[in-house]
């Protein structure tokens, strides 16, 4: 029942916030439920201790499994469980949610509605990571859509309605493609075994289904590449990878700060998670074709370089951070793309491992960067980089934390951002040196726009009008410090993260035979 509690606890909190009498009590209820969910998720840790915590092949090492019949007519089940793939992201979600709930104390408009939707969103996110049934996964995936739409569309900035609708339509387009692939899986598995299934583990491990997916033709197309493409577009929209990224800058710029934190910290990870949970285990041969590797890797590379270059050209501070997300998530895609090839060569999962690490690290660093921008925006009421300057002299504590956040984002050695990128770079180098060189250019561009931005915003002479630049409050320091601590810890001792997921990632990769 632990996982069910983790999933529903935020939703229960969301209902309770609606019954609270004052804005103050709503904020505290919302925050305490987010924290309680985080604490509850820590109970998952013991299951991942010990040598046999991950099993020896994919489908083993799934803990706290709950399996109940849900819609027998479609053979859709309430099937949740946690393995090394979902575990780090569950912890990330509950952690970022708790921190964002604290960051949301500055929301003053319709506080009740905000926290209720916020907590409903958390339920959706946790459901996505914990579902092992594709149908359930899809339902939770869609469940996130509406709260997010309202959170941007009601509490957002001046162009919030445009941004919310754009977010909705992009995500929905991805969902439709995913739904088509999902139905394809169901009907072909029915064809292969007589019983259609949405069971993600069975779809990945049943040999009959596996053969069927590789051989089947649908309307004159090979099924596996078609399904892989549909799923990829669905996940690439979420990730977001160029050219499916254009919703992101709008959504981020208009979203209120805590929602930007959730969006960058957790929602973008759904794309990477979806690829690792659905596309790679269920359609491994397709993922290992040179075409798929090249397409995914090049999209990843374009995202890295293009995202960084566009970020450099921004004058809106928040838009800059938004484009940096595009660039950083490109690393995830690049790492995933090259893994099948290098695993076949020397059983090395640096690509997967680096992608996962990058997701965790970016979750922490981007949430931190968005909050840093939010802190400044609340005081200055604008986000124009060129109109800032000398903030370091006015707000020294804030400047210290900002350095930590942006350097983590930049990938400074010793901070978490570095580890993920270097893993992916090593993996890419083993497969194609040119790609690795291009990715390294992306790293340089990243250092460029971050340092240049820090110089323009924080350094320089003391601004003339400083009365509105009040020092950071204790609440803001807590938000920033709690995120910052983990960027240091993971940067210094990456094994603290990798030990919890490498086992499962190896099991996923084992489908590809070593030559």
């Amino acid at each position, binding site marked *: 029942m632990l996982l069910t509690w983790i999933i529903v606890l935020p939703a229960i909190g969301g209902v309770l916030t609606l019954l609270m009498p004052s804005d103050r009590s709503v904020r505290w209820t919302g925050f305490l439920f987010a924290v309680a969910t985080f604490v509850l998720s820590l109970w998952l840790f013991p299951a991942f201790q010990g040598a046999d915590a991950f099993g020896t092949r994919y489908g083993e090492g799934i803990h706290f499994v709950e399996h109940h019949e849900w*819609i*027998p007519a479609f053979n859709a089940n309430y099937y949740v469980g946690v393995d090394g793939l979902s575990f780090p992201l569950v912890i990330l979600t509950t952690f970022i949610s708790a921190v964002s709930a604290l960051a949301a104390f500055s929301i003053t408009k319709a506080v009740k509605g905000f926290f209720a939707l916020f907590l409903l969103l958390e339920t959706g996110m946790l459901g996505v990571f914990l579902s092992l049934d594709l149908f359930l996964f899809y*339902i939770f995936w869609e469940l996130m859509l509406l709260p997010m739409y309202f959170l941007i569309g009601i509490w957002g900035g001046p162009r919030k*309605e445009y941004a919310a609708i754009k977010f909705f*339509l992009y995500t929905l387009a991805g969902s*439709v493609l995913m739904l088509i692939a999902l*139905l394809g899986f169901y009907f072909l598995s029915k064809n292969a075994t007589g019983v259609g299934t949405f069971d993600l583990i069975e779809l990945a491990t049943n040999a009959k289904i596996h053969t069927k997916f590789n051989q089947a033709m649908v309307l004159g197309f090979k099924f596996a590449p078609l399904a892989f493409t549909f799923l990829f577009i669905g996940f690439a929209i979420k990730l977001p990878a160029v050219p499916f990224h254009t919703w992101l800058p709008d959504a981020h710029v208009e979203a209120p700060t805590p929602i930007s934190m959730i969006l960058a910290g957790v929602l973008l990870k759904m794309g990477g998670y979806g690829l690792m949970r659905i596309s790679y285990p269920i359609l491994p041969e397709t993922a290992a074709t040179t075409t798929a590797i090249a397409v995914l890797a090049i999209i990843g590379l374009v995202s890295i370089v293009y995202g960084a270059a566009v970020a450099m050209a921004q004058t809106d501070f928040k838009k800059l951070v938004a484009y940096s997300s595009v660039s950083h998530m490109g690393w995830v895609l690049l790492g995933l793309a090259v893994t099948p090839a290098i695993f076949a060569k020397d059983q090395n999962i640096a690509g997967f491992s680096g992608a996962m690490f990058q997701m965790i690290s970016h979750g922490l660093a981007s949430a931190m960067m968005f909050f840093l921008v939010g802190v400044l925006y609340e005081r200055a009421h604008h986000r124009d980089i060129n109109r800032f300057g000398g903030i370091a002299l006015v707000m020294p504590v804030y400047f210290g934390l900002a350095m930590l956040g942006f350097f983590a984002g930049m990938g400074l050695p010793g901070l978490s951002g570095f580890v993920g990128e270097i893993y992916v770079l090593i993996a890419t180098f083993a497969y194609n040196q040119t790609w690795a060189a291009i990715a390294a250019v992306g790293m340089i561009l990243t250092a460029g726009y971050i340092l240049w931005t820090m110089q323009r915003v924080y350094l320089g002479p003391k601004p003339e009008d400083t009365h509105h630049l009040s020092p950071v409050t204790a609440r803001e320091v807590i938000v920033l410090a709690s995120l910052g601590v983990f960027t240091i810890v993971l940067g210094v001792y990456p094994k603290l993260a990798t030990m919890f997921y490498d086992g499962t990632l190896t099991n996923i990769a084992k489908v590809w035979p070593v030559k």
Partner: protein
Amino acid sequence: MTALDLQALLPLVLTTATAIAVMIAVTITRRHGLAAWLCAAGLAAAIASIASARECAPRHISDLLVIDSFARFYSGLILAGSLVVAVLSYGYLKLRTDRHEEYYILLPLAAVGSLVIVCSANLLAFLLGLELLSICLFALIAYRRTGRGDLEAAVKYLILAGASSAFAVFGAALIYADRGSLAFGPPGLALSSPVALAGIAALLVGVGFKLALVPFHFWTPDVYQGAPAPIAGFIATVSKGAVFALALRYLSTENLLADGRIIWLLTAIAAASMLAGNLLALRQDNVKRMLAYSSIAHVGYLLIALLASASLGRPAAAIYLTAYFLASLGAFGVVGALSQPTRDADALADYRGLAWRRPFLAFTLTAMLLSLAGLPLTAGFVGKLSLVFSGVSSALWLLLSALVLGSVISIFYYLRLLAALFATPPASEPAISSPNTPWPTTAALLFLTVALLAIGLWPAPLLDLIQKMAVAAW
């Protein structure tokens, strides 16, 4: 006629008795509340009588009617829909006109017409039911008699329904001329001669009109716009549901799908309805007209179930119709609840910032729109998914593509209304100052919302019920 026959007919008898009871009550004392409650209680009793007689085997009552579990399921749906309409109408009529009571005579009579259509085993019964339904609707559409729109809508409906009925009667006559009987079946005969085929084509015109399928859809937006909101809901759901159930029964009893031409014709009509309905809805600023166009598309989707194999198509039709009933009645219910005495709240501007003024109505309408759009966790998603399942199993790729395309288009206009609901309210006074919602309306809307979400979250019980009732062979 045996006692068992009577028991099987009980829903029909009780609904008719309701109309008579209201009629008598009105002659004694003209009180709106009394008439409304009598009507609602009668319809509720009729629903209860269906539930009590669930185990009874299929019964043919004379040559005209057949009461089987299929008929019982759709009778239940029709009666439940009528009951909701009656409750919603109470709040709606309270603010309008001083003659409320006759409305509650016409409404159960229209329901009787729908029930007869659903139970008919013979073209004669179908035509009788169709006429009873249409005649009651003429009066109900024009019931307010406040503006030109009402009368225009009623006259339009009168003329076009009359013309389409004439087609249906002519079709029945041709079929009778061919085989000497108006009874449905036996299968295959109808396709053997050109005369019967012409008869079926003429019948299709009549049915297509009532279902508002392209190209028989032109009346829909005007009638929905002019009719009182609850009656627009009735036309969109009960009237269409009854005729659709009949089409399902007729098509499979006569085995018409054995003919490629009919499959081709229905496919073309379905695809055209899905696309035209959704595309025309895109540009609508009038909410009632938008719902009218979207209802055209929804019936287009439903035709997938008609064309799919019976084992998956019939349950899919039942699920989709149930979801569509809930969402459409809810949407029109909200329109009605927002309406002023002088005009219905049908302009998009009336809905701007509704969430800040009337959170309950805005939340209800949100749920209804999401269900109509087919988003997960609503009944509409389960319905649409069942349709897709039935379509895939029968390889109806063209229609499925149209369904996906139509659904994506529909998101735009549903989202447009949804965005308006939650927009920052305009600084000036809202365009429409809507009256307080009476509690029966609130209760009905709450019921619809809860049912909608419950089915979306936990569809297994409904699917079981449908598997048991709406699929049984006849």
